């Protein structure tokens, strides 16, 4: 086939030439071309290679069903594999190259695989590659994985970029009354009618121009009609989106759209996203998605130069390219005749071969007047030519068989074997299409949701009927009645045919042209029992390539039906899955990439911390200060200095990320009493209490302190990562289980900035910041007391004397906007005293020394007794979890319980995550594990906290091994009480 550009005709703009490159060579096309039409005009024939056999592939279609011209676009970080050249809008400077071939698609060494085709039938890899040949000797997967290395290298079509996609994508939302998909005659009529009915309409069209099949027609009347409708749509205020594919229909009238914004532009504007992913919520949906032409299976039907008849019409009338000089057009239905006439008028020598014996006189006359030679009762049996078509051998049906007939030379073989309505989107909603014997296609089934088909997608083949059905669809979509438009079919019925082959002759005819699935593969699948459509698809991989079976599925079904001796519907119907055409993953992700993948939560003190030397770390979605390194300090030196300073002097730590929930109302204390394991009913005003919350199943949910600010006003704190979870839990309890309680909860986590100030000199440092220094005297603010007071400058603050570190400590809270002012005040008084800022690492050191639990210990599988806090489970009341925590396995004394761990040789260290086991026991779960470790400044050596079966009592005096095979060796350790420093807790009372 040699395509040639005609001097006139087509919708391209010959005044706007565009330069592009293909495999490094320079070509010219025009505005309005696709990459395929421009390459065809440039005489290119082989544009790709098939997946398995690396057979040459050319342009087969003019649309999304393309299985041959699959190319790689772009370069560098914008490289885009697996693009269908028929869907690429040409722009100046476009770079495209072949893929899945070496050295090039025109000459590919991979085609040698074709010589071994007989061994590579469907599913052959399930029958071998398990072990050493010839009989699969061996054990394990070693041999298979060697074969697999080669298979993986040969697999895949294009190569993805290795670097981050530099483009941005947006996610946009829209609402409408009616979503119309497709802008052919049916779609435009439907949209116009819906607008006339007063509806808010969105019309989406995957092409860059509106009109659908009208764009492929030559008749000036068609173009006039198209123009008129486009104008009417604009006037009616219909929202029109071109270059937009509706890729999926979802629940409740939701549609996913992919809009191509800059892909067709030579110069991409900086400010624009490359593509937009739309979520549209439509009251009703009309699918005017058209129909796709089918081809046939016959020998070498995959040769470049074999294409659908409708494609040829498109290249001729839309792009002004004559696809061949000497054409044979094979058909079994009426639709191809007008194409034949038009090709002849454009100067091609064309023979039309119709399988049917009787043709309508109109059509015969049309052929005569156009100078098209006609032959009847014949179909193509074999395409001749090595790298592209040079001729076609025909065959004649006789009874059940085909008999070889004449050969015709040609450089282009067009095939029209029927039409398949595009029902994919409807199928997403579960409506199974129904086979229509007369039209030889699947027709959409009625859908229980408000989705209506119109036009060729509903089985209407002529333009007037399509337009009428669009109008009817608009009425149906808006809940009105509409007359049913009968399916007129064709003047002369179609004669269904799916495969042409001579009996007894081995033939390589292709059903899925990307995956190289042949008709023999289908028959082999039948032979081996893979007879349902799902098994057929999976065994042969038919329909699983990037065209998603648009070209080959029906032929596959028909061949399987024939093998079974049944009708097509008996085989089953393929269920289509979204997306209709492939969608860039970047588009689906939108802007939530890179640093925006998840929100970053920063405390009100974030910037202040950074200015004062904090290194941040992730804590859930938050950034929290990890440590504040001074010049030249190593990580270890820093946290040890910080922890030491807290114990010796004082330290300030940002705890703003802790959850804070206002629990208010006359029943608040009753509520707290039900959710905490320990008593809260009688917590005095101005007092705080540490509480543990269990889940319904008796495991620890979260811990924190709750402060009683007044009779009916409590502030409940949670861990940072538990904040959201606990808030939802409290709301659930109050609304679902205990609606009789007069309690209201509000999250105030973001409203307060808070710090923990800890160490012997704390009182002095804080007092110097207060308007009334006496407010936090030992008498005025005893241990576990809470009071509201003011910082200098009138800043309201809440101070609770609670201690996580075990030192004399206070938590100071101010309204978030006053956070920096609070820090400036505190730092101004603390720094001169020798105090420091400290972060999560040192906080960890301090709490480990004290044996306090955090999320590392409370992992959702731990009971309150396991955590050594059993005394906090009140025996006097029932509370959430109190029933199920008494289940037998949860009360066993040999459960892992909280302990401290010392290295026997004090100079050694160990890791969190090490297991604790009996010395010499080298396998098994062990007796326990270490959750966290630190070098303890207070004790002068490394310590750990963790769990061991039976707890401290069971291991006193015994040697235990801390084993960590994934990171280091074994260390002998001692099990001690988890309260490793200041066990009596005297320091907090300072």
């Amino acid at each position, binding site marked *: 086939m040699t395509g040639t550009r005609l001097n006139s005709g087509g919708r391209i703009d010959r005044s706007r030439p565009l330069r592009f490159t293909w495999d490094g060579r320079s070509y010219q096309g025009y505005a309005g071309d696709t990459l395929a039409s421009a390459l065809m005009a440039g005489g290119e024939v082989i544009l790709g290679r098939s997946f398995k056999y690396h057979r040459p592939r050319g342009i087969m279609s003019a649309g999304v069903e393309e299985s041959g011209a699959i190319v790689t676009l772009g370069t560098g970080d914008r490289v885009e594999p697996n693009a269908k050249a028929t869907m690429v809008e040409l722009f100046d400077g476009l770079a495209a190259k072949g893929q899945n071939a070496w050295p090039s698609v025109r000459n590919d060494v991979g085609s040698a695989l074709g010589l071994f085709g007989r061994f590579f039938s469907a599913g052959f890899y399930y029958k071998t590659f398990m072990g050493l040949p010839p009989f699969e000797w061996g054990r394990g997967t070693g041999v298979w994985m060697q074969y697999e290395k080669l298979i993986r290298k040969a697999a895949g079509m294009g190569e993805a970029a290795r670097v981050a996609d530099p483009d941005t994508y947006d996610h946009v939302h829209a609402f409408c009354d009616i979503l119309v998909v497709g802008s052919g005659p049916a779609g435009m009529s439907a949209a116009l009618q819906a607008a006339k009915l007063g509806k808010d309409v969105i019309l989406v069209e995957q092409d860059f121009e509106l009109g659908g099949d009208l764009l492929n027609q030559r008749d000036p009347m068609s173009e006039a009609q198209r123009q008129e409708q486009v104008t009417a749509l604009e006037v009616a205020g219909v929202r029109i989106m071109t270059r937009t594919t509706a890729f999926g229909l979802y629940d409740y009238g939701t549609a996913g759209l992919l809009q191509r914004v800059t892909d067709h532009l030579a110069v991409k504007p900086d400010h624009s996203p490359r593509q937009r992913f739309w979520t549209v919520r439509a009251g009703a949906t009309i699918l005017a998605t058209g129909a796709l032409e089918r081809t046939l299976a016959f020998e070498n039907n995959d040769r470049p130069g074999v294409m659908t008849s409708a494609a040829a019409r498109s290249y001729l009338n839309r792009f002004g390219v004559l696809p061949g000089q000497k054409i044979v057009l094979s058909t079994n239905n009426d639709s191809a005749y007008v194409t034949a006439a038009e090709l002849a008028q454009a100067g091609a020598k064309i023979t039309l071969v119709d399988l049917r014996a009787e043709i309508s006189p109109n059509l015969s006359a049309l052929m005569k007047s156009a100078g098209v030679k006609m032959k009847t009762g014949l179909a193509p049996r074999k395409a001749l030519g090595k790298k592209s078509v040079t001729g076609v051998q025909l065959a004649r049906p006789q009874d059940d068989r085909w008999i070889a007939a004449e050969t015709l030379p040609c450089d282009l073989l067009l095939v029209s074997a029927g039409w398949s309505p595009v029902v994919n989107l409807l199928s997403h909603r579960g409506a199974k299409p129904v086979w229509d014997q007369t039209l030889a296609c699947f027709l959409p089934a009625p859908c229980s949701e408000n989705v209506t088909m119109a036009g060729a997608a509903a089985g209407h083949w002529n333009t007037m009927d399509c337009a009428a059905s669009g109008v009817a669809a608009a009425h149906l979509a808006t809940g009105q009645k509409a007359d049913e438009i009968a399916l007129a079919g064709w003047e002369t019925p179609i004669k269904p045919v799916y495969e042409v082959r001579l009996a007894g002759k081995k033939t390589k005819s292709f059903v899925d042209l990307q995956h190289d699935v042949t008709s023999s593969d289908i028959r082999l699948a039948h032979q081996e029992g893979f007879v349902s459509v799902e098994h057929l698809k999976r065994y042969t991989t038919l329909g699983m390539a990037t065209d998603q079976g648009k070209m080959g599925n029906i032929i596959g079904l028909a061949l399987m039906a024939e093998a079974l001796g049944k009708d097509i519907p008996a085989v089953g119907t393929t269920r289509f899955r979204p997306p209709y055409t492939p969608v860039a993953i970047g588009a689906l992700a939108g802007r939530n990439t890179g640093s925006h993948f998840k929100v970053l939560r920063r405390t009100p003190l974030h910037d202040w911390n950074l200015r004062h030397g904090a290194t941040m770390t992730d804590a859930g979605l938050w950034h929290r200060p990890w440590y504040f390194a001074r010049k030249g300090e190593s990580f270890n030196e820093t946290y040890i200095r910080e922890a030491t300073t807290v114990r010796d002097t004082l330290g300030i730590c940002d705890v703003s990320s802790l959850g804070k929930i206002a629990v208010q109302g006359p029943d608040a204390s009753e509520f707290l009493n039900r959710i905490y394991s320990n008593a809260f009913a009688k917590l005095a005003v101005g007092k705080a209490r540490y509480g543990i919350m269990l889940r319904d199943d008796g495991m620890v949910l979260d811990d924190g302190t709750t402060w009683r600010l007044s009779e009916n006003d409590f502030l409940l704190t949670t861990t940072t990562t538990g904040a959201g979870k606990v808030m*939802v839990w409290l*709301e659930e309890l109050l609304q679902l289980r205990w609606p009789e309680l007069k309690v209201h909860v509000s999250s105030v986590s973001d409203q307060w900035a808070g710090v923990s100030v800890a160490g012997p000199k704390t009182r002095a440092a804080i007092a110097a910041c207060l308007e009334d220094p006496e407010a936090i005297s030992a008498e005025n603010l005893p241990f576990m007391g809470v009071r509201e007071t003011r910082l200098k400058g009138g800043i309201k603050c809440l101070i609770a004397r609670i201690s996580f570190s075990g030192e004399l400590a206070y938590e100071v809270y101010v309204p978030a906007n006053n956070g920096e002012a609070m820090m400036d005040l505190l730092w101004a008084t603390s720094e001169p005293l020798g105090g420091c800022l400290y972060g999560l690492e040192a906080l960890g050191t301090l709490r480990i020394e004290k044996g306090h639990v955090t999320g590392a210990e409370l992992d959702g599988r731990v009971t309150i007794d396991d955590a050594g806090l059993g005394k906090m489970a009140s025996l006097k009341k029932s*509370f959430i979890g109190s*029933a199920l925590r008494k289940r037998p396995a949860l009360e066993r004394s040999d459960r892992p319980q909280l302990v401290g761990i010392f290295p026997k040789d004090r100079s050694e260290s160990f890791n969190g995550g090490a297991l604790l086991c009996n010395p010499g026991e080298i396998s098994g779960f062990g007796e326990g594990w270490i959750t966290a470790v630190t070098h303890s400044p207070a004790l002068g050596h490394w310590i750990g906290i963790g769990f061991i079966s039976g707890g401290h009592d069971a291991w006193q005096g015994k040697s235990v091994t801390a084993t960590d095979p994934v990171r280091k060796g074994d260390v002998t350790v001692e099990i001690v009480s988890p309260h490793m420093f200041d066990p009596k807790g005297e320091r907090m009372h300072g």
Partner: protein
Amino acid sequence: MIRIPCPFCGTRDHSEFTYGGDGSIIYPSLDAPMQDWHDAVFQRENICGVQVETWQHANGCRMWIYVERDTMTHEIHSVRAAHPDMAVALEVTI
């Protein structure tokens, strides 16, 4: 996208809500026997068809709602505020 008619906010995408669980469970009193609690916490009917379930409009009004929804077709049959007093005040079903 399941579109849920929140009694407080109107019809919103389900992604604005967090799913709770089986809305037919009546939790026993805190001092009820262990077996009652076991059954309420661990056992589910898991209806294929219309069930009552809880959702919270977490990215909206934060109210919990009971939704009658068909777990096969996802069709929503009714929605009411979980808190009985709220439900009465709104008296909204669809």
